[in-house]
């Protein structure tokens, strides 16, 4: 995965989680101050990031987000943490590319050690 694309993709994913959390009743109950129109600003920012991705990747990300809520799944001990299926070992060698989980289709993310 090209570093700059990877960076945009990861930030987009983290922002989407932020947007989702703000809608959680548990989060609202905690009582942090949220400025009016805040989520609209955040949505605009995530859309700007989406435009910085190659079109096919952006489309794929949106489809996966719609389907699973979280489009990216970290990999831990060769397991996709989205569907908890074991990944073929040969995928590890391609961990720097943008790879989909062969089982659920989420974009896989190998944490750097």
């Amino acid at each position: 995965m090209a570093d700059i694309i990877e960076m945009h993709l990861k930030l987009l994913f983290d922002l989407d989680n932020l947007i989702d959390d703000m809608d959680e009743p548990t989060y609202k109950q905690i009582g942090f101050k949220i400025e009016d129109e805040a989520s609209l600003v955040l949505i605009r920012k995530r859309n700007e990031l989406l435009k910085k991705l190659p079109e096919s990747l952006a489309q794929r990300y949106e489809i996966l987000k719609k389907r699973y809520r979280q489009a990216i799944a970290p990999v831990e001990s060769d397991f996709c943490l989205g569907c908890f299926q074991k990944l073929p070992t040969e995928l590890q060698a391609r961990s720097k590319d943008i790879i989909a989980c062969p089982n659920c289709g989420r974009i896989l993310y190998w944490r750097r050690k």
Partner: protein
Amino acid sequence: MNLASLLSKDRVNLSLKPGKKEDVIKDLVYSIKKGADAELIVSTLLKREELGSTGIGKGIAIPHCRSLAVEKLEIAIGRTAKPVNFNSIDKKPVSLIFLIIAPPQDPGNQYLITLGKIVQIAKEITKKNLIQKPKTEEEFITIINDIEKGLVKRK
């Protein structure tokens, strides 16, 4: 999840360098992660701050986010000798900062539960005027532990 179990001495910094809000957030993040991972977390935390300050008033702030960069719930605490402007809810500067970062996948919603618990503990700390009391990192962890036990008993 017991909060004190998530804390260790190296995650508590009672002499955090004062500076701008961005600087103190960055310093705390770097006690958890380094390099590109740390930069990703800092970017997300600052985006969160743009939505509204996480300064909850009475000298305490709780910056928080989820990030792909962490594998488990991570907490770091910092106290500055000189208060930092955080654009808090009561407009007062902060000197105690609880930083919480959670992984995106979070079975049982531990992140939001822990975040809520930290807010309660932070409020107890201000109520009992304990921000400046602990002299060592160990003392600070003990205070948090005691408050947490007290909160459990009250329920």
